[in-house]
């Protein structure tokens, strides 16, 4: 496995108490694979990815437990959770790269595109400026920026949102990283651009596979449409836990966690019966500083059982590569609709 996260816990120590943003999650990504982490706002998706980059602001945040193992080859791994800042700086942008949600604010407004792209190459590959510019132009072309030689000396505010996200992707891929973490890369873009950016990501991944060095992608999103389009495997997060993990087709065909079921029901679809009303999940996710004992979804769960309020369910295997953390073992009970919401 390219990246293996084991029992990662990232907590924030604030004045209001300990916020358990990520509370014991495990997942893995192989080369050439796209893992989607889905969940609603505040479920700990972004914190889990920032933990992998070791970009958690400290204080108040800290990785309190767990391992983040990056493959070194020949069966050896590096635990990113234990690296010092200097070693981590050599890995960021070089072996593990990240793209962010809002392309409008993730480029430095005072620097030209060329300055920001060249910076990466100078940092990690010690290239001279002229050589770095050549590489930057090639990469801009590869991410579909027209007339890259001219665009190179533009400032970010001359580019549209989609263009800027392409530049971000170019920046992330410039040093041929092994792992790409994309934190909601399409959320801030309009629908057409979204599709283009996702295509671009998959396209770059395939291009890298052909070169023989598979690129693993962790894509964070709250959009199940994106998941269906690009994911190989999906991990569903709720209140700092991964509650279900599965190959993508299986997750949509046979969801085993009531939260996954609820998520799927609350998404509109162009196909099928349009008169059917969307079913929201009642209630609100718990505050991460006050997660109750037991299963965090228990208070909103239509299939809740007494033990749900007592113990957090163990992850159990329900199919090949399909794991779920739920006390309810009956697949039909999990899919029971929630009680009618009375207005």
């Amino acid at each position, binding site marked *: 496995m390219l990246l293996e996260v084991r029992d990662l816990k990232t907590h924030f120590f604030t004045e209001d108490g300990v916020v358990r943003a990520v509370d014991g999650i495990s997942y893995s990504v192989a080369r050439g694979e796209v893992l989607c982490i889905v969940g609603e706002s505040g479920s700990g998706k972004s914190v889990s990815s920032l933990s992998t980059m070791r970009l958690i602001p400290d204080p108040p945040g800290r990785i309190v437990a767990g391992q983040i193992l990056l493959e070194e080859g020949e069966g050896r791994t590096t635990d990113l959770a234990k690296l010092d800042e200097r070693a981590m700086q050599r890995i960021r942008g070089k072996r593990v790269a990240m793209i962010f949600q809002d392309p409008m*604010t993730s480029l430095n407004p005072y620097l030209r595109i060329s300055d920001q792209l060249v*910076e990466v190459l100078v*940092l990690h590959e010690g290239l001279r400026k002229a050589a770095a510019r050549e590489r930057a132009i090639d990469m801009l072309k590869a991410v579909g920026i027209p007339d890259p030689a001219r665009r190179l000396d533009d400032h970010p505010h001359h580019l549209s949102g989609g263009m800027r996200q392409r530049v971000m992707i170019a920046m992330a891929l410039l040093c041929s990283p092994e792992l790409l973490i994309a934190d909601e890369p399409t959320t801030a873009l309009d629908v057409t651009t979204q599709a283009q950016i996702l295509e671009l990501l998959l396209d770059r991944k395939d291009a890298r596979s052909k070169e023989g060095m598979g690129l693993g992608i962790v894509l964070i999103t709250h959009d199940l449409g994106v998941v269906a389009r690009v994911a190989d495997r999906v991990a569903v997060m709720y209140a700092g836990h991964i509650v279900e993990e599965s190959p993508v087709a299986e997750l949509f065909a046979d969801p085993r966690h009531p939260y996954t079921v609820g998520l799927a029901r609350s998404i509109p679809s162009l196909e099928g019966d349009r008169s059917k009303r969307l079913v929201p999940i009642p209630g609100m996710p718990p505050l991460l500083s006050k997660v109750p004992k037991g299963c965090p979804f228990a208070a909103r769960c239509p299939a809740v059982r007494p033990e749900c309020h007592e113990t957090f369910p163990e992850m159990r295997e329900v199919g090949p590569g399909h794991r779920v953390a739920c006390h309810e073992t009956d697949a039909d009970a999990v899919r029971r609709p929630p009680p009618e919401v009375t207005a």
Partner: protein
Amino acid sequence: MSEEVEATETPPSSPAKASPPEADATKGASLWTDAWRRLRKNRVAVVSGVFIIFLTLFCIIWPEVSPFRYDDANIALGATSPSWTHPFGTDDLGRDLLARLAFGGRISLAVGIVATFISFAIGVTWGGVAGYFGGRIDAALMRIVDVLYTIPLLVLVILVKAFFANDKTIFYRWFVWSIGLFTDHAKDPKYLPLFQIVFVFAALGGVSWLTMARIVRGQVLSLKSQQFIEAARSIGVGDAGIIFRHLLPNALGPIIVYTTLTIPSVMLTEAFLSFLGLGTEEPLSSWGLLVANGTESLDLYPWLTFFPGLMLALTLLCFNFLGDGLRDALDPRVRKD
């Protein structure tokens, strides 16, 4: 004619060549070039800038070429109103006011610029470090600033002058050594007032960096949580790169503006201190000192107050206009005009 033919022969490949202004727009002027262009459009700011440059040159050159020295007394002549020989008149000791104004301008402008430079250097570093590293470092540094804020300027100036500005301190030896590079009579007591002014510079600089530190800290705090800083980290940029390549250029706009506004405020404070007899001392002159002396005989020799006051007011006004212009020019919200 031949140019026209060329242009029509290759229109699709090089539309930029055919229309230079458009090419300029797509070239992507840097924000600084943009700011400079907007500043040039601001007529008031340009006039102010030109006036300040002219005035500075005048203060530097005039005392060297003037027929009268700033301290040439002519008691027999006494105070005379403006005339062809003395365009701004003379004071009660018969000293040429224009020469004294030019020389005083040196001190007033120097106080403004030196104290502002001190405030810039300390304030940017202090606030930058506090804001960037945050946590305990921030708390410690900013509490020190809070404590220093409580020291009244007047008390500080009096204390500093009383303890350091005499010929028995080590500072005096440094001073003698440094002006010894220019003159053979470094110990001459006539240089003592010059020595004392240095402490006015230091005291004013020592007070005005506090606000600068707070401004820079605020800027850095708000900038460092922005996504492009996180993005820069995510490609492996270290602390130094983040501070100097990514944070400071973005914070520079407000810093520059505050700096240009500090210059007049420091000059005004120097004038105020001189007025109280705590700043520049005779026979040296500064605009504040000239105004102070002039007011003693305002009813008899009004020009002694009028001209220095006019200079001070004009300069302050120009620095304020220039600062305003810079703020508008550097504000990105004005960009899409």
